[in-house]
């Protein structure tokens, strides 16, 4: 039954995830433009970009790059399916990390110096945010007495009440996960140049299109994680969660537009420090008190 729910969830997420993610990316670009005193592109611009990429000539430096990126997209969809069908949060975390690893492998497989810089930076980003993400799963278990996301629907109060410190920690690493400045070291959406387009330097046409779709799905999943903190047995809580998700995404856009990119050392140290303080203290508090 669980397998069937996950499969149906994945199929539904494969349809709804990209649509919501695309609109989110479009709104992101319009709001960013307004913050910079510009009119900005149409809301559907990310959709036009991807459609164009799929119309381009198919060229690749090797035959495995496309397979790795397709696997990364597939596992991102699976992670979304597991999460939104109320499945195991820990499994969702592992599957989305697997997706990131396939993406890194795709970049390394091209043997391009810029792609390798990007892949190394992407690896550092994964290393930076992963402790906090794992502690989030542990804290979730402590708060909900289950790893199943669906367990929040049976609670008397949202899990944020007991693990608000973990929520703040997740908020910090969310900037890394959403590839927003100041932590957009591996792959930036602004001022495209070789180093900051790192991971995707050798990806072009349809493969780059798949990367964009994967990014949309990832964004929807991560915003789902944020919403998860505010849902409890009351159905009204879903509306509250969506409002908070919108607010958090706006905050991320604001951060993106106001902070300059940092060096990887700062990202790594600060993310681990936050994981240790926010995650560690909260988990220890729930475990021993």
């Amino acid at each position, binding site marked *: 039954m669980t397998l069937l729910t996950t499969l149906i969830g994945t199929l539904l997420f494969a349809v709804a995830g990209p649509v919501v993610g695309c609109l989110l990316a479009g709104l992101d670009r319009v709001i960013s433009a307004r913050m910079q005193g510009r*009119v900005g592109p149409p809301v559907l611009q990310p959709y036009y970009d991807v459609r164009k990429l799929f119309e381009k000539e198919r060229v690749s430096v090797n035959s495995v790059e496309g397979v790795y990126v397709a696997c990364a997209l597939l596992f991102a969809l699976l992670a979304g399916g597991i999460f939104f069908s109320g499945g195991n949060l820990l499994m969702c975390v592992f599957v989305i990390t697997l997706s990131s690893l396939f993406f890194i492998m795709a970049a390394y497989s091209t043997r391009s110096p810029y792609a390798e810089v990007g892949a190394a930076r992407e690896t550092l980003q994964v290393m930076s945010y992963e402790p906090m993400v794992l502690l989030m799963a542990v804290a979730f278990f402590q708060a909900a007495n289950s790893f199943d996301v669906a367990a929040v629907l049976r609670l008397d109060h949202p899990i944020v009440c007991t693990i608000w410190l973990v929520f703040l920690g997740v908020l910090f690493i969310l900037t890394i996960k959403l590839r927003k400045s100041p932590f957009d070291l591996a792959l930036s959406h602004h001022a495209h140049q070789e180093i900051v387009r790192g991971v995707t330097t050798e990806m072009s046409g349809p493969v780059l299109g798949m990367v964009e779709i994967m990014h949309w799905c990832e964004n929807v999943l991560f915003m789902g994680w944020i919403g998860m903190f505010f849902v409890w047995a009351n159905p009204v809580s879903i509306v509250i969660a969506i409002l908070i998700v919108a607010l958090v995404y706006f905050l991320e856009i604001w951060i993106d537009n106001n902070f300059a990119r940092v060096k990887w050392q700062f990202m790594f140290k600060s993310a681990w420090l936050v994981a240790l303080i926010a995650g560690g203290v909260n988990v220890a508090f729930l475990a021993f008190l």
Partner: protein
Amino acid sequence: MAFASKSPWVIHYDGSSCNGCDIEVLATLCPGFDGERFGVINTGNPKHADIFLVTGSVNEQNIGVIKEIYNQMLEPKVVVACGICACTGGVFHDCYNVLGGVDAAIPVDVYAPGCAVRPEQLIDAIVAGVAALDEKSAALKAARKGA
């Protein structure tokens, strides 16, 4: 429906320009003119770009670079020669080291003369380039169906 015209990503290369046209190219992409309204994004990667903006004339030093960038770009692609030097060689056309305009190295789709070329004219050139991009995209699709 061709989507090539809805998201023209540009790459800019300075051949041997005096930087006058380069400044105008960058000014065109700045918030004042807001190229992103039309989906224009300045990329640093030929593999992601659709429109190649070249400034300055072609000489023995840069002909290889121009050809390399052009060859790395994926079809459909369009070349815009920005400024009179890129169109014909301009005031440098009879210098001993100048081979001529950009068309001495690669096929050019749109010529945007001027010294320096103005942002308004560049926007016109990019719009003309976008039309050429749509034609090429349609031709590519037809060729794919035929094959």
